[in-house]
Each structure stands twice: as structure tokens, then as C-alpha cells.
């Protein structure tokens, strides 16, 4: 497993990602979108662990996160925030990665509870993954076992200010350093690990490729798998032969 030190901690714009925008209106527009992103966060309804028990209080009458524009959403397609509420068993981690890859960027991961940092009190358990950020880029950690609703909300607010100021760019790291994350996943789940989402194609599509996106692990992936290509419409068999 490659060391985390090799990975830039804060996002540094790369050439592919940082298109120069000369239009001043575009800048205003970007700021508007960023502001709205910070004020409208849909979090995924996925109770991965016991910390999820403090989310209903945070969402309901007493603390009411909807004040801040935070709403629970059901499927990963609609959600912006993936809350990892506590320990992740290996079986769950696979689902979390699937879910994370199905979410739409910009997307943010919040590690709630101490277990997401270093395994927490289950450090000697054979069934839980220990360091969440080896597998997914985590934006905010909220410590505690389990953190109170106030702590959850303050963590959310921190994420909000990060989004507003444009610092919360960790989702790009997943595309840009996919090889690193995939390597860690492969180490845990076996070399023929594959998710249905084709992250490499997505990075290519949205111009998020860097020289760290591809590497030995993605090569292994491409060797094992036939990436799931979209079922494009086609009129005749000739096009099929072309591709």
C-alpha cells in the first residue's frame, strides 16, 4: 500500500482540471454554483454503522438540518454527501465504494465516529476495515464515539464553508489518484475486484485524468475485466463491428 504522504492532501489544480476561464461572468457563475452547492447538500440515507443513530436527531425536530439545506436522499445518484457513520466492515466497504462511485461529483465523504479514522475500538477485529481514507478520499472527519448531533452539524458547517471557498475538492482526488485507491481496494478485496462504474472512462470523459489515474493497479483491472461500456443506441450491425 502506497503511503499517504505521496498523495497531495489539498487539491492542487492540475492542467486537465483547471481550465482557464477568461469570461468574468463565468467566474460569477462558478461562485454562484459553489454557493448553492454549499447551501444545498443532499446526504445519502445509508446507515453504515452505529453512528447513524445520531443522524435522525440531527435531522428531526430538535436540530433540524433542513435549516441548512441538508436533506436526506435515498439513492446515491441524488446524493452529494456520503456519511460513513462508524466502522466499516469489509462487506460494507465494498458497498460503500460502489455507492461512492455511483454518486455524482462534486461529492463529499464525511467520516463520522472514531472508527473511520483508525478502526476505533474494533482495531483488532478481523472484519472491519481500519483506515477509511485509504479507500476513499475523505473530506471531513467528525470524531467521537459517537459524535453528538451538534458535532455532526458543526462538521457539516465546516464542509459547507470548505465548499463555499472551493477547498473541498477531494472528490477530484479519487479520479486523479484512482490507481492509489484502487490498489488499496485490491489489496483488501482481491486482485479481481471490480465495480460496475467505469471510473477511468469517467475521468477521461470529464477531463480529470492525471498521470496518477492509471498505473499498475488499473492495468491489473483492465486485464481482468471488460469494462462495462454503456449500451449506446445503434442503428445497424456495421457500427458494432467498427467499435
Amino acid at each position, binding site marked *: *500500500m502506497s503511503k*499517504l504522504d505521496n498523495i497531495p492532501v489539498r487539491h492542487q489544480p492540475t492542467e486537465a482540471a483547471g481550465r482557464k476561464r477568461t469570461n468574468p461572468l463565468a467566474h460569477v457563475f462558478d461562485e454562484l454554483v459553489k454557493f448553492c452547492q454549499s447551501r444545498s447538500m443532499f446526504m445519502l440515507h445509508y446507515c453504515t454503522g452505529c453512528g447513524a443513530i445520531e443522524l435522525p436527531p440531527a435531522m428531526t425536530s430538535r436540530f433540524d438540518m433542513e435549516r441548512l439545506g441538508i436533506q436526506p436522499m435515498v439513492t446515491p445518484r441524488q446524493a452529494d454527501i456520503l456519511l460513513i457513520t462508524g466502522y466499516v466492515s*469489509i*462487506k460494507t466497504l*465494498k458497498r460503500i465504494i460502489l455507492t461512492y462511485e455511483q454518486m455524482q461529483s462534486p461529492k463529499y465523504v464525511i467520516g463520522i465516529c472514531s472508527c473511520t*479514522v*483508525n*478502526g476505533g475500538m474494533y*482495531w*483488532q*477485529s*478481523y*472484519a472491519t*476495515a*481500519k*483506515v477509511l*481514507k*485509504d479507500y476513499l478520499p475523505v473530506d471531513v472527519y467528525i470524531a467521537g464515539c459517537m459524535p453528538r448531533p451538534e458535532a455532526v452539524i458543526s462538521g457539516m458547517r465546516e464542509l459547507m464553508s470548505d465548499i463555499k471557498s472551493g477547498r473541498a475538492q477531494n472528490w477530484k482526488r479519487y479520479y486523479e489518484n484512482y490507481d492509489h485507491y484502487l490498489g488499496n481496494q485490491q489489496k*483488501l478485496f482481491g486482485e479481481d475486484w471490480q465495480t460496475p462504474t467505469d471510473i477511468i472512462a469517467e475521468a477521461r470523459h470529464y477531463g480529470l485524468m492525471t498521470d496518477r489515474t492509471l498505473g499498475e493497479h488499473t492495468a491489473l483491472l483492465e486485464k481482468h475485466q471488460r469494462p462495462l461500456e454503456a449500451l449506446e443506441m445503434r442503428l445497424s450491425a456495421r457500427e458494432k463491428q467498427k467499435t
Partner: protein
Amino acid sequence: MSKDLNIWLDDLLGDIENIQFKRKSSRRVRVDVGSEALPALLELLQGRASYVHLSAISCVDWIEDEEFELVYHVWSYETRSLVSAHTRIPREPGVYLSIYDLYQPAAFFERDIHEMFGVFFEGSPDMEKFILTEWDGPPPMRKEFDSEAFVNQHFEWEQYHPQWLKDLEEEGGGVTTRPEDIRL
């Protein structure tokens, strides 16, 4: 009423050979029985003494004795007492009979024990993996499986050693005496 029944139960169990029988309290009875007689005993308890509720099947791995101990906790809603029937089976090959025909909840416990200890129950409806579907290692609850060693071998740790922790250590804070050094 329930007292009488308990006495009756004592008589009943006293009649059966090959079992040791110990009353721990008014509502707890421990029975030690050979593995070949256990199904018969449970059948008797269920049929004659209304022990219809299988509370749990516990498995204990006595690795030094090369044996698994299976404990069947059955409860009677009428006598309001719990019989724990202990039996031992050899660790190898670790095969035993299912009591699913008597108690349907046994299916879950037997499946669980099969998964965690590797004891196979013949006649159980479903011995497929349930909780550990994505686990390739040995049955983890066996004593020879060392979870900590497994973890150290497979996972790495986030290095977290900030200055304040170092300062604290220099001051001698935190637990310095190891537990094994201060045994009473």
C-alpha cells in the same frame, strides 16, 4: 404450581441415564448429556415438559480438550424455567445432528455456529454462509484463529502521533503500567 412442575422435572430427568443434572436456581437447570442422547432429551423436554422455546444454542471451543461444547438453552413458558443442555462433540470432524425438526429457531443458530466455528449440522435446512459471505478465511470464532495477528498482517494504521501526544508521553501521562504487571 411451578414448584411442583420443577419437582416433576427433576424426577423426569433423574430417570434418564447417562446425564448429569444440576439445579442452579429455581429457574435454571444445567444438564450434561452425551452427544448421542441430546436429541432424545430435547424431544422429551419439548414433548413432555413443554419446553417449546429454544432460547439459544451456544458453542464453546475447548481447544485443549479437542472438543466443542454445544449448549442448548430451552425455556418453558409453563414451568418458567430454563434448561441448559450441555453436550460435547469432538472437534474433528465437528459434525453433529440438527434439531431443526424440534425447534425451528435452531436453523439460525446452527447456521451461525457452522459459519463461526465450522461445525456442520446434518439435517439443518440451510448451511450456507450468511454473515461471512465475503470472508475467505477459517471460521473466525475458533480459538486458533488470532484476530489480532490477522489484522496486523492485513491492515495498516493511520500514523497519528501529534506533538501533544508526544508531550504527554514525555510527562509520563497515560497508562504506563502494563496490566499483567499488577496482578492481584
